[in-house]
């Protein structure tokens, strides 16, 4: 499914983006600017049609990769390193997911003329309606 996202010949450019992200993530600083950058990734994902499940899968993949490789290399601090990476990948996943949800809401405001607060209420109401139907069904 995620293969459909890419244009022909795009892989080298995307690989470079991941290398840049990895370098900055390891070297830091992991400051407000870093997390604002991650929020912008959420925005890019909306444009490219990268769904949150695709992104969350890759977040989990990166953390698990670091965990496995640091165990295999028998790094003396493999455990705290893995824990730090699992935590970081979850925060990055949360920021990108939230960015995606918020930007989608903002764009819906432009499309449907709904204020984000109204959309939030309608969304909760829709969930209530669906749940009631499932319970009845």
């Amino acid at each position, binding site marked *: *499914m*995620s293969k459909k996202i890419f244009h022909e010949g795009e892989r080298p450019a995307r690989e470079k983006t991941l290398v840049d992200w990895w370098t900055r993530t390891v070297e830091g600083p992991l400051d407000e600017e870093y997390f604002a950058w991650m929020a912008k990734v959420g*925005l*890019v994902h*909306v*444009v490219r*049609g990268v*769904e*949150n*499940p*695709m992104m*969350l*899968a*890759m*977040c*989990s*993949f990166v*953390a*698990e990769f670091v*965990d*496995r490789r640091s*165990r295999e290399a028998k790094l003396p601090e493999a*455990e705290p390193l*893995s*824990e730090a990476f*699992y*935590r970081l990948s*979850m925060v990055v*996943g*949360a*920021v990108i*997911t*939230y960015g*995606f*949800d918020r*930007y*989608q*809401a*903002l*764009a*819906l405001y*432009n*499309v*449907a003329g*709904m204020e984000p607060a109204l*959309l*939030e209420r*309608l*969304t*909760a*109401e*829709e*969930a*209530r309606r*669906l*749940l009631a*139907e*499932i319970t009845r*069904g």
Partner: protein
Amino acid sequence: MNREKLREISRQAMEDMAQEARFRPEDHQVLLKHKDRLLALTDELVKAFYDTLFATPNTRKVFHEGERPEREKTLRDWWQRTIEGPVDEGYWDWQAYVGLLHVKRVVTNPMMLGQAFLIENVVRRHVNEPEVVEALGRLMATVAAIIAYGYEKVQLLSVEETTGIGQDLIRTNVRVGVEKLLEE
């Protein structure tokens, strides 16, 4: 509208996940192999889960007064069913249902993702075999993906219901709108 919507959410979310990160049947065999140790963590897991939710102002706000025992029971049931199985289509539909409950209670995706991390972390500290860490990692990534996707799906459904604009057109317009934001 009925349970089909849950199936649609869980299926779509799982299909969107890269195969390497998606939960697979062998993962559940691993969880079953370590079932006793994993189930022995139930009390600690439930306590850590709700202690942190109640200690954090934004997540504390989600709960009504006196609700904690009921919520603890829900988590206990979820953990037991997750370990004991079956982790089948019905299980994933249930996770989509949990996603709808989150939207109704205004539990945001970052709140949910934080708790997914916590569950993995508590387990890792006690059961640190690579096969368990990997199986649980794929399980939590899949559960989180389904719940996160549910939020987006309900948001689109509510706009469709209110405006009568079809979801595909909404999606296209959203993309165009966000592209403009990106240019700014």
